[in-house]
């Protein structure tokens, strides 16, 4: 998975984005991976505040849900009371008609129970799902904005896990929150009812509760640790599975199945033992609670029995006590369960909100306007930029691309060409100087509108698993089928598209793997042609494309560049020769610029290259790749 995220910058400019940007990204990453334990240390209120922020639009539903819970709890608590009433006032007084009334009201209570039970569950699920839907949407947005810098480092798998696993944990918590409220209300209600029925007996019975809390306090830290360990081991298993699915070709080519089976087995076993430990710790509360319940029942029997004998209480009261005591410890047990859920959700919430809180480096100004209609003049004024401001990758870059001109950027690997194109599209903001389109600083206009006038063809063409038609007309909503076919014909992609099973309606496989790299490249050209931007940024993919279709590509390129301002990271001399201006970049600085003829006549780097007759410009710095990729100071 990391392969894709690496590719954009890897060919030309591996070191820049990869080595320096992480100054930020790594930090972010470290924060996100901060150990769960530390997070638990502070069950801090911010997470809850954020929840409430998200839940606030659904106040009404939550209010109704809370009322439903109260109704539900009352119905639940009323049953033993009615039984007591029935025994003491009807049965023992031989009053049949009263008994009938009580039985019928019990049916009424059952009806209330039904209704409120249904209502509370449905309402709370709706609120939970909608809140989670909102959070997930926000995460998606944030990831989209961040992905440029963030996902270079973090494998997509990890991001996805956060999106699904953590959001799932939150959902579980929200859904069971209603039970938690219900449990608390039940506990509270039982205590009140018991006290009202008979203070003395109630106090004797409830004397056990502090003891239970004491046990829980001792138990808590152990259980938490075991629980966390289990979760961590489970995610280790997940990551390993992901690696093997992504690297399946290597696994099979190198016959690692046996070895990997063993490794996976080991990880699964570790997970198994940690889960056993966790369940042992979770389960140990069970006999404790049972013992408590039994003792409480016995107390009611002995003490209550004594009080019945002395006629301080009725026999029905004692029965009610016995029924309540049975219910009393049940919520205590489930509360334990829910507490674990809550902890998990808080950890997940932390991670989610941390992700949402990462500040965006590139933002629209509040008064940003759309860029409007443009001629297509692109100008770099003294631009200095580094992914880490301390270490600039580009120094004092100035040049102009007049409307309709093609400007070729050439230079050895790692000279900063890719960074120039990324800046033109405002993937990042410059540290010094400015970039303007038709005289407007690109920081003063909306990012959306820049996308509308500027197209981009990437070196590593990415296609979605959709049809050819959908891929070529990607995000150009008014493009018709005819437009797509016309563009493919111009580009020279029509023939191979027609050879696909369903022509333009053939669905591409994951990342377009049923096409060759060259074919994918042609489709991405067609895509740019359909979008028809005034300015085109193009990273020539000669390193990956097959020379065989070189000519088709060259022709296509000529047509694509026609009438547009173009910034081309060029590798091929033929492309370079045909451009209006050549800018030679080396170590982040412009060392030469001019037309092909001018440069050949000079004695600079370009003319040397031309003399040596190399096929590609990347060849000049043989070791540029090696030297510059050392991640100094990182580890």
């Amino acid at each position, binding site marked *: 998975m990391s392969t894709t995220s690496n590719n954009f910058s890897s060919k030309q400019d591996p070191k820049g984005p990869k080595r320096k940007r992480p100054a930020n990204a790594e930090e972010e990453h470290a924060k996100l991976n901060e150990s769960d334990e530390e997070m638990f240390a502070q069950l801090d209120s911010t997470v809850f505040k954020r929840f409430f922020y998200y839940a606030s639009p659904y106040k009404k539903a939550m209010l109704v849900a809370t009322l439903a819970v109260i109704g539900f709890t009352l119905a639940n608590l009323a049953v033993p009371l009615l039984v007591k009433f029935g025994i003491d006032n009807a049965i023992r007084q031989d009053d049949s008609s009263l008994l009938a009334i009580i039985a019928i009201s019990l049916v009424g209570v059952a009806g209330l129970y039904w209704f409120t039970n249904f209502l509370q569950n449905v309402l709370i699920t709706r609120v939970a799902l909608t809140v989670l839907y909102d959070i997930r949407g926000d995460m998606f947005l944030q990831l989209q904005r961040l992905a440029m810098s963030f996902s270079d480092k973090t494998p997509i798998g990890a991001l996805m896990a956060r999106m699904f696993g953590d959001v799932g944990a939150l959902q579980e918590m929200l859904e069971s929150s209603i039970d938690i409220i219900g449990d608390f209300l039940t506990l509270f209600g039982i205590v009140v009812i018991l006290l009202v029925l008979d203070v003395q007996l109630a106090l004797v019975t409830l004397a056990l509760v502090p003891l239970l809390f004491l046990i829980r306090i001792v138990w808590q830290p152990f259980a938490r640790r075991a629980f966390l360990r289990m979760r961590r081991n489970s995610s280790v298993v997940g990551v390993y*599975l992901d690696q093997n699915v992504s690297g399946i070709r290597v696994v099979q080519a190198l016959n690692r199945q046996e070895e990997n089976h063993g490794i996976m087995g080991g990880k699964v076993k570790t997970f198994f033992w940690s889960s056993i430990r966790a369940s042992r710790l979770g389960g140990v509360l069970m006999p404790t609670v049972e013992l408590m319940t039994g003792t409480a029942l016995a107390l009611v029997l002995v003490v209550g029995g004594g009080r019945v004998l002395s006629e301080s209480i009725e026999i029905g009261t004692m029965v009610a006590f016995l029924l309540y005591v049975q219910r009393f410890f049940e919520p205590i047990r489930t509360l334990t369960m829910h507490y674990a859920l809550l902890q998990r959700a808080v950890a997940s919430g932390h991670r989610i909100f941390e992700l949402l809180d990462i500040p965006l480096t590139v933002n629209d100004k509040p008064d940003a306007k759309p860029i409007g209609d443009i001629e297509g003049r692109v100008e770099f004024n003294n631009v200095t930029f580094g992914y880490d401001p301390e270490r600039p990758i580009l120094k004092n870059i100035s040049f102009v691309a007049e409307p309709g001109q093609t400007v070729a950027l050439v230079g050895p690997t790692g000279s900063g060409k890719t960074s120039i194109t990324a800046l033109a599209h405002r993937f990042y903001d410059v540290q010094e100087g400015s970039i303007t389109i038709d005289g407007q600083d690109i920081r003063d206009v909306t990012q959306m509108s820049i996308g509308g006038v500027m197209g981009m063809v990437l070196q590593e063409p990415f296609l979605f698993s959709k049809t050819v038609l959908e891929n070529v007309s990607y995000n150009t909503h008014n493009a018709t089928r005819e437009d797509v076919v016309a563009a493919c014909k111009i580009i020279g992609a029509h023939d191979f598209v027609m050879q696909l099973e369903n022509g333009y309606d053939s669905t591409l496989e994951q990342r377009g793997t049923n096409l060759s790299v060259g074919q994918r490249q042609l489709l991405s050209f067609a895509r740019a042609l359909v979008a028809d931007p005034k300015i085109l940024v193009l990273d020539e993919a000669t390193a990956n494309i097959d020379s065989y279709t070189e000519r088709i590509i060259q022709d296509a390129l000529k047509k694509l560049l026609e009438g547009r301002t173009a910034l081309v990271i060029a590798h091929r001399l033929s492309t370079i020769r045909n451009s209006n201006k050549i800018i030679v970049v080396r170590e982040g600085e412009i060392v030469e610029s001019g037309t092909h003829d001018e440069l050949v006549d000079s004695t600079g780097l370009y003319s040397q290259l031309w003399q040596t007759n190399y096929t590609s410009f990347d060849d000049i710095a*043989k070791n540029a790749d090696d030297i510059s990729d050392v*991640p100094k100071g990182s580890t």
Partner: protein
Amino acid sequence: MWRIVKLTLQYRWHFGIAALFAAVTSVISLFVPKLLGEGVDEALTLIEGGTASRGDVESLLLGTGLTVILFSALRGTTGFAQMFLGETLSQRVSNELRMLYFDKLQVLSFSFHDKVHTGQLMSRGLSDIEGVRGFVQSGLVQIVRVVIVIVAAGVFMAMIDLQLALLSLSFVPFMVYRSARLRLQLRTTWRKIQDALGELTTTMQENLAGVRVVRAFSAQKYEEAKFDVTAREVVDLRMSAARTHAYGGAAISFAFLVAWAVVLWVAGEKVIDGELTIGQLTQFFFYLALLRFPVRMIVMIINSTARASSAGGRVFEVLDIPSEIDNNAAAQPLDVTEGTVRFDNVSFSYGDAPALRNISFEARKDHTIGIVGAPGSGKSSITNLIPRFYDPTIGTVSIDGTDLRDATVLSVRQAIGLVEQDPFLFDGSIKDNIRYGDVDASDEKVVAAATIAQIHDFIESLPDKYETELGERGVGLSGGQRQRVAIARTLLTNSPILVLDDSTSSVDAGTDARIRLALKELTMGQTTIIIAHRLDSLRHADEIIVLDNGEIIERGNHDDLLVLNGHYKNLWDIQRGRGVEEGD
């Protein structure tokens, strides 16, 4: 569904003991109401009879109380044992399933992996297996307990009063009926939810992987809308599941409470008529209170069963796919003597689209075969056939005269070292990555391989050298560096046949030349097949095959092909940077 049960029953003893504990727990828990009821009853008779002294009554109550405590402690212990065993059982089953799934994925052919999205495979491997686990834990074992509680409570109650017992249990048929319906409804919904979640995963994954395209086309809004539609669908589906679930659960609880009312009424009348004692009435209520447990459980069980049967279905779907590449029964390990790779009239297609037609060539020891061709001309298909990632449709691929289909897959792959254009590196140290194919390789061998691949100096320049971590928490490598690590990884296996599939495309020409030189010295006695678009890399090959549209259109060595003045020559000119002018 049954397959999950069958899988669970492999652990017969484990399951048996867990079920036994469940049964014991249920029965013990039923004794408590009996004791309490009798306690109440005896106290009452004593009071009403007025014969016994207060002390007698108190000691009787004390005795009952102590017995209650004893039984509760016992029940807690067996309950714990049951829960613990149930959970370990569920872990064992899910872990077994996890391993089966993992192993299956490892052997499934490339055509499968090409088609099925990684996100889909992951969601099956993680959440679906978890769903199955939930079922074994809260479904299979608990159902035993639910049934026993109901049956035993029925028996106990019938011993007191048959009519009342029947009335108390009157809600059970209704519960069974509702549960069955609920199960059916939930199963369909769960399946839909899982599919929708899979789709959501895919959308998400593509969006992140293709983030640069999304940005370049300012398509954030479009992607958001797409994501939104699927996310909405998930919400709606889950909502409908929740509604069904809540409605069914509430209805069952209602029926249960109505049973309380009926019992109170009828039993109350009986007490008034003197047919029943107050203590017996109390007992009935305690039994009813106990039945709260199965009523609560049954809805959970139904939900987890429904989820498991669809989740299990998704997992077994993968497990049941026959692997297209399989050892035939008589397969022998391949005995590589010379390392001669031969294609005899090979035709091959992926599905319907023909990829190769009538390909014949031979690659011998100490020889290098170069393959060039347009995108889609079939070069990569050839490399896929050699390690038998696919089988040819017509014709044979053989090594030293043995048809690959007659050799074991393992031995074929051991004989072949393949380097791909876009190699995958695993999370872990560089060293571990290089010795991925031979975990026991010595450091010297690792260094030697890295040196040939021209990556040693770079690795040495890293702070942690060969121990540098790659991947999530580690260093990101450039495309060229990844390719070189991959070359080292393959070289280490020292296979007699080396297949390089455009494996230096991102390495600059100078380094490429040095790799080639180093390889030349090393590949004494090896058979080498190189696919490249950079003709410089192939210049020195003994034979170059030019492919077009799945067929061989030209072949010969570099000089022959130049003389031929055909495709190859044309290509050569283009690459020398002069072709375009001539073409214009």
